[in-house]
């Protein structure tokens, strides 16, 4: 089942956000 290609490391994601000039979408979830 395809789903969103989530990143898990916020610092890496921040770098990607700067490179792509996009905001971050953070999903805080309950892993159960």
């Amino acid at each position, binding site marked *: 089942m395809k789903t*969103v290609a989530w990143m898990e490391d916020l610092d890496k994601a921040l770098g990607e956000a700067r490179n792509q000039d996009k905001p*971050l979408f953070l999903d*805080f979830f309950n892993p159960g």
Partner: protein
Amino acid sequence: MDAVTYPTQSVIEHIEKHSIPVRIPFDAPLAREFVVKWTPNLLFVDTERALHHRIIGFLPPEELNPAILLGVGKVFFDHGDLDRALGTLNHVVEKHPASHAAPEAVYFRGVSQYKKTHSGEPLKRAYEKLKAAYPESEWTKRAAPYRLL
């Protein structure tokens, strides 16, 4: 969200086109930084880690897509990137008029246009649109003073 909303193709496309998606367990140390006390808790954050919009609770695909655009639009708005803000907010208003995000998008679209033109007319038009299309929305009440412009 995992069972219904995230596997939906349009949601995947919206999230990946407009943002960098990150998943964080609610009990991770970052939850304290972003004051997360309940899940689902969806945040729109800029590259300086500043929070601009928050969504709490489950949303089905037809509501999450416009909610994502609203959140992205508010990041642009807060940064003064008014053209990009208007692009995303217009999309919410025109393509998802029945969504819960639409009234807030109408409000911030009017404010963005005001900031670009320094004319009160867009604020008045935003109120009139809200009154006509979303009379029970809290955003109609928030825009009510603009009827006098």
